[in-house]
C-alpha cells in the first residue's frame, strides 16, 4: 500500500471489531433468512460471551443458522424485526417473556433502517393502516390522505457480510445475500464488514460498488459460512 492507501485503509481484525460489540449493544445485522448474515462476526460474538443484545434486522434466521445462533444461545434481549417464524426458539423465548420482539412490516422495517442511514426522521406510509400495525403510531394527513408515521432506526454497530471489499470499505455483495446489508451498513455509528475477499484500492469498478466506503469503519476477512443451511439439513434427514 502506498501512503494514500494506508491513510484510507479500514482493514482490521476480528478481535478489534469485537471491541465495539458488548453487553447491551444496539446491533443491526444484514441478512435475510440467514443469507447475508455475517458468519465470522456471529461466531466471534458467541465466543466473546456478549449478552443482552438489542438486535435490529429482518428476521431471526434459523435456530442453527446465522443470526439465529445468537438467539438460540440466549444472547438477545430485544429485537426489532419482521419475522421470527423460521426460528421456533425465538418464538418460545418470546412466549416465555425472555425475548422482547417488536414487529415491523418487512418493507417498512427496511425503509426505517434506510431512513436512519439517510439522516431522515421517518416517513409516511399507508402500509398497515387499519391493522395492528397502527398501534402507538402517529397518524398524519398529507394532501388529503391518511398515513402512518414510521420512525427512522439507527444502531450503535452494524455487522454485515460482503462479497468483496476494498481497503477503503467499498463493497459488493453476492446475489440474494445483498438484501438488508447495504441498508444496515448506512444506519449504524460503527459499521463492521466481513468480506469473503479483501482487495486493493482500485480493484473494484466504481460503477458496481453497492456500498460506498464512507459508510464502513472496519473491514475484516470472513471465514465463510460455518453452518448447514436449513434446506441442506432437511435433505440430510
Amino acid at each position, binding site marked *: 500500500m502506498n501512503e494514500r492507501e494506508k491513510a484510507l485503509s479500514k482493514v482490521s481484525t476480528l478481535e478489534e471489531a469485537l471491541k465495539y460489540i458488548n453487553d447491551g449493544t444496539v446491533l443491526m445485522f444484514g441478512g435475510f433468512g440467514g443469507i447475508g448474515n455475517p458468519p465470522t462476526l456471529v461466531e466471534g460474538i458467541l465466543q466473546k460471551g456478549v449478552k443482552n443484545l438489542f438486535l435490529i434486522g429482518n428476521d431471526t434466521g434459523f435456530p442453527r443458522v446465522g443470526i439465529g445462533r445468537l438467539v438460540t444461545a440466549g444472547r438477545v434481549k430485544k429485537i426489532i424485526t419482521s*419475522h*421470527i*417464524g423460521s426460528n421456533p426458539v425465538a418464538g418460545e423465548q418470546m412466549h416465555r417473556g425472555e425475548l422482547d420482539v417488536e414487529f415491523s412490516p*418487512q*418493507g417498512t422495517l427496511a425503509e426505517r433502517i434506510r431512513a436512519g442511514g439517510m439522516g431522515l426522521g421517518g416517513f409516511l406510509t399507508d402500509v398497515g393502516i387499519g*391493522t395492528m400495525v397502527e398501534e402507538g403510531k402517529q397518524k398524519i394527513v398529507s394532501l388529503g390522505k391518511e398515513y402512518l408515521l414510521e420512525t427512522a432506526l439507527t444502531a450503535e454497530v452494524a455487522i454485515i457480510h460482503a462479497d468483496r471489499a476494498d481497503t477503503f470499505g467499498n463493497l459488493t455483495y453476492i446475489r440474494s445475500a445483498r438484501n438488508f446489508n447495504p441498508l444496515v451498513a448506512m444506519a449504524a455509528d460503527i459499521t463492521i464488514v466481513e468480506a469473503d475477499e479483501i482487495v486493493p484500492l482500485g480493484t473494484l469498478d466504481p460503477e458496481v460498488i453497492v456500498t460506498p466506503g464512507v459508510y464502513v469503519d472496519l473491514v475484516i476477512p470472513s471465514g465463510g*459460512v460455518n453452518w448447514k443451511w436449513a*434446506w441442506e439439513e432437511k435433505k440430510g434427514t
Partner: protein
Amino acid sequence: MGLGREKRHLVASRAARELKTGMIVNLGIGIPTLVADYVPPDIHVVFQAENGILGYGPTPREGEEDPFLCNAGGLPVTLSKEASYFDSTVAFGMIRRGLLDLTILGALQVSEEGDLANWIVPGKRVPGMGGAIELAQKARRVIVATEHLARDGRPKILRACTFPLTTRKSVQLIITDMAVIQVTEQGLVLQEVAKEYEPGDVVQATEARLIIPPHVERF
C-alpha cells in the same frame, strides 16, 4: 404443513394456471413457493422476491443449489435471463408502488369479504408479518393458496376472521386442495371443485357462505 406432498402440489399447480404472460409475480412462503415449479411452458412471467431479486426461476436440481441465490423463504432458486439484484427497500418499493401484477400468499384465515389473516395465531404462534401486509395490500391481484382446513381440522374460510388481520378486502381468489373460490361483491362463489370432492364437501369444510353456481368446474 398438514397436507401431503401431492395435495400441496395440486394447489400450487392449479394456482400456476392463474399466471399470465408479462406478469410480475411474488410468491409467499409455503405452498405459494411451489408455484414457480409449475409455470406453463407458454407463459412468461417474472418472479420477484422481497430479499431483492427480480427474475428467478424454478427450484434447481439437487446438488446445483446456490446458498446465495434463494427466495424470500430461504429456499434455493435459479435465475432467469432478465434478472437483477437489489436491496430490500427497492424490493418493497416495487410492491408499494403497485408494480406487482399478482401475489400468491398463504393464509391462516380468509373471510367472505376477502380479509386476510396470516401472521398471528393468538396465544400460540406469532411468526411476524414479514412482507405479507405490503403484498396483500398493494399487489394488483391477491390469490390465497392454502390448505382448505387448518391443521386442527377447523375451517380457514370464514364469515369473518377471528385472528388479527393482515389486510382488509384484499383477497380476490382462494385456491385450496378442495376448491377454487372467487371473492365477489355478492360473496364467495365456488368456481371449481377438486376431482375427489363434491360441492357439498366444500360447503361442509367452509364456515363462510358459498354461492354455488349451476355449473362448477373440476380441477
